């Protein structure tokens, strides 16, 4: 097949996002992803149906979860003949999965598919440390009982401390927050601007719940009916009282209030061709137009860890012959309030756009009233791989409600990655 066709976002489902160590303490990634899938299946009456594929992943994975997506399909009410595979691109996982599924639909390789992601920091994998692991491997390969005993005798108490997963960057040793604190300072992002963005996120998300926006996007899980990180009464004044947690010195600005907390949750998005949607009498919410992934060299180069999205946006706009102002919604994942603000500042900076992006001029400012209008990660929380699915489904519904227009989705990710995409309302 040489021609391509349009791929559409048809709907989505997620479970409420919950702060780490809370209500989902006993839930595994597979439990959560399976529940998210089942909620989607019941919403669209797909019980027993074979879909083209399910692409999903998690950032923090147990080794037993090597086939997480497929195992979740087998535990769900989808037909067991639905193929599935795991995707992993840090916080970009969910959106990247949607891109993969949309591309296969566009190529006619599949007619329908689910993209998703799940993450838990409550049921995170703890591994034995490298030193103990090497010792145990020696025990395993020992041929005689004597060899085995002598290998076991080498275990020392210090080896028993488990290796904890960390969100530190392997090549710099800095945590993501520490990286971002440097970037925040470089771009001169103020504490006030960050707290304002955070308060707006909470207020927007609360309003969205209030008007029933999530009634067909979310299914309760383990007795939780709403994201429990949400603080509807959040204000910049209240947020101003928090102490900084990232950065050093008196000018540190990043607090627990304007950074996303560790969160547990899962989300899925249903995509399909127009024909498949028609066959199932499903009204498409939005067209999946195009996507771009960029990466920056934050290790040896002169770019910051979370600054890849502006690079991806610039290339995506150019390819689609659009300006930054041609959008009705901007869905910028709020890893930290300052990440979003740094991206906006960079896009508006002539120096950055000319010097770093190689453009003739700045891409310009955006209308801030169109930014994260139903709240984003600061309020909802951010179970790494689940954020993309949350954003894609919500954004598609927003476009459907508006009945026209275009949305720009942008997600920054560990390792200097950035994933961005364009959705458009269906005619």
């Amino acid at each position, binding site marked *: 097949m040489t021609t391509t066709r349009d791929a559409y976002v048809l709907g989505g489902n997620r479970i409420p996002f919950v702060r780490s160590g809370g209500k989902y303490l006993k839930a595994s990634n597979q439990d959560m992803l399976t529940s998210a899938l089942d909620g989607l299946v019941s919403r669209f009456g797909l019980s027993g149906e074979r879909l083209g594929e399910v692409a999903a992943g998690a950032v923090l994975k147990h080794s037993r979860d090597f086939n997480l997506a497929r195992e979740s399909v087998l535990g769900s009410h989808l037909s067991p003949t639905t193929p599935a595979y795991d995707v992993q691109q840090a916080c970009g996982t969910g959106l990247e999965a949607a891109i993969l599924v949309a591309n296969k639909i566009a190529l006619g390789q599949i007619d329908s598919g689910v993209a998703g992601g799940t993450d838990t920091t409550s049921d995170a994998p703890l591994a034995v440390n490298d030193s103990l692991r090497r010792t145990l491997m020696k025990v395993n390969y020992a041929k005689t009982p004597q060899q085995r005993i002598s290998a076991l005798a080498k275990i020392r108490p210090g080896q028993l401390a488990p290796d904890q997963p960390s969100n530190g960057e392997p090549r710099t040793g800095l945590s993501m927050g520490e990286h971002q604190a440097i970037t925040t300072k470089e771009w001169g992002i103020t504490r006030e601007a960050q707290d304002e963005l955070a308060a707006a996120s909470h207020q927007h998300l609360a309003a969205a719940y209030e008007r029933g926006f*999530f009634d067909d996007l979310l299914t*309760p899980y383990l007795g939780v*009916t709403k994201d429990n990180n949400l603080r509807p009464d959040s204000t910049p004044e209240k947020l101003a009282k928090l102490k900084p947690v990232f950065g050093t010195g008196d000018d540190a600005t990043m607090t627990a209030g304007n950074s996303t907390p560790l969160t547990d949750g899962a989300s899925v998005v249903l995509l399909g061709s127009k024909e498949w949607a028609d066959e199932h*009498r499903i009204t498409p919410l939005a067209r999946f137009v195009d996507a771009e992934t960029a990466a920056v060299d934050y290790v040896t180069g002169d770019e910051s860890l979370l600054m890849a999205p502006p690079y991806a946006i610039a290339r995506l706009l150019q390819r689609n012959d659009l300006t930054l102002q041609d959008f009705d919604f901007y869905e910028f994942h709020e890893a930290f309030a300052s990440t979003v603000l740094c991206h906006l500042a960079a896009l508006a900076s002539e120096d950055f756009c000319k010097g770093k992006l190689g453009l003739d001029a700045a891409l310009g400012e955006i209308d801030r009233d169109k930014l994260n209008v139903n709240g984003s990660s600061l309020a909802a929380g951010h179970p790494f791989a689940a954020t993309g699915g949350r954003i894609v489904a919500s954004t598609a519904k927003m476009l459907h409600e508006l009945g026209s227009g275009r949305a720009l989705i942008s997600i920054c990710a560990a390792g200097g990655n950035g994933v961005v995409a364009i959705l458009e309302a269906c005619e």
Partner: protein
Amino acid sequence: MSKDTYSNLVNKNPIGRSVAGQLGLPKPEVLRRYQEGQDLLVGPAAVAGIGDAPVAASATAILKASGAVVMHATPATSYDARLGAIVFDATAARTLDQLDELRATVAPAIKKLGASGRLVVIGTTPAELGDAEAAATQQALEGITRSIGKELRRGATANLLWVDQDAQGDASVLAAPLRFLLSARSAYVDGQPVRVRAAEVPDVADWRHPLRGRVAVITGAARGIGAEIAKVFARAGATLILVDIPASGDALSKVANALGATALQLDVTSETAGARIAEAVARKGDKLDVMVHNAGITRDKLFVNTDENRWGSVLDVNLRAQFRINKTLLDPSVAGGLADGGRIIAVASISGIGGNRGQANYAASKAGVIGMVRQLSRNLADRQITVNAVAPGFIETEMTAKIPFATREVGRRLNSLLQGGRPGDVGEAIAFFAEPGSAGVTGQVLRVCGQSQLGA
């Protein structure tokens, strides 16, 4: 579902069984309930009637079509085997003298009626008869069946079908109601009259799956009675859209996926509820065939202590929401609205008939449902839409499991079957109203109460 410990003791425990027998304690029968593919009756059916018994031939044909063995009964008939059912056609009775024919024929047959057996008396709708004695004679049938219902033992039931005169020549309009009352699907329906009017009834090709190809919406389907209604509808072949509030979405999703249904998270009191239901229907078919208003809440408090909120919220969920949703669905221009020939079925309650202490708000809503059903059925008759309600009595649910022990035991035993009903019994009655064959049944409130003395 709550546990009926007493029933288990006297039925399943050998010592309990023997002690109960010696003391003459009441022994609730384990009722025969419908299972897919089950025969209509456990034994032969005895058919008899008064005068030329104009409906008896139709009844016999319906019974034979179901595979039942039919014997013609007279006062002199001697019965070899336990009967599965007695069908008595009293439609031609016009004088009090004629009622003795019923006594003479039915009494010996009842002595041979088996466990979970059925007596169905067929009469003529009294309101149609100009002659006072004729009307009295037909009304008397109600007293007779209700009394026999109270005398029958071992899970047997007695019910009455009043057939309008212009419907008496049409076997098709009688088939679904008669089959329902004879079958195990009506296990907990006892001592009730059902009126059958003339109507266009489509041919029923598949009695086991009468709802195949029909789109049905059930509200309050995440748990309890609603989830059981959904199961019965799924068994009958319906394409289902199950509705419950977003906060119950996880339970709703499980019910829906187990039945291959679609879940719709929705607050029935929201302004857009009707539109969103129609939208969901349009995804599954062109029009809605069956709307089941089951969603309901209780906010019990003595009347004098009931505040505005408890009062309003119960009326809003249990009744006002139905009016709003119906208004949207009955608009012929709405895609996914209710089809002509469709069904509206509401869940009332015996609280709505007899009232209940601490439930003035709830009883108001449920009595209101009854009023709505009666009037709406007339308003929609020209569109062949039937509107009916079921009034559950004591049903073993999570809700009734919370009633204090003594009150619960009274509610549970104070009926002719000496036990509570199951949520599925309510589902069976609702599915009966939903059947295409029930076109002649409208404006009715069918109690599913085991002939409870509460509200009677």
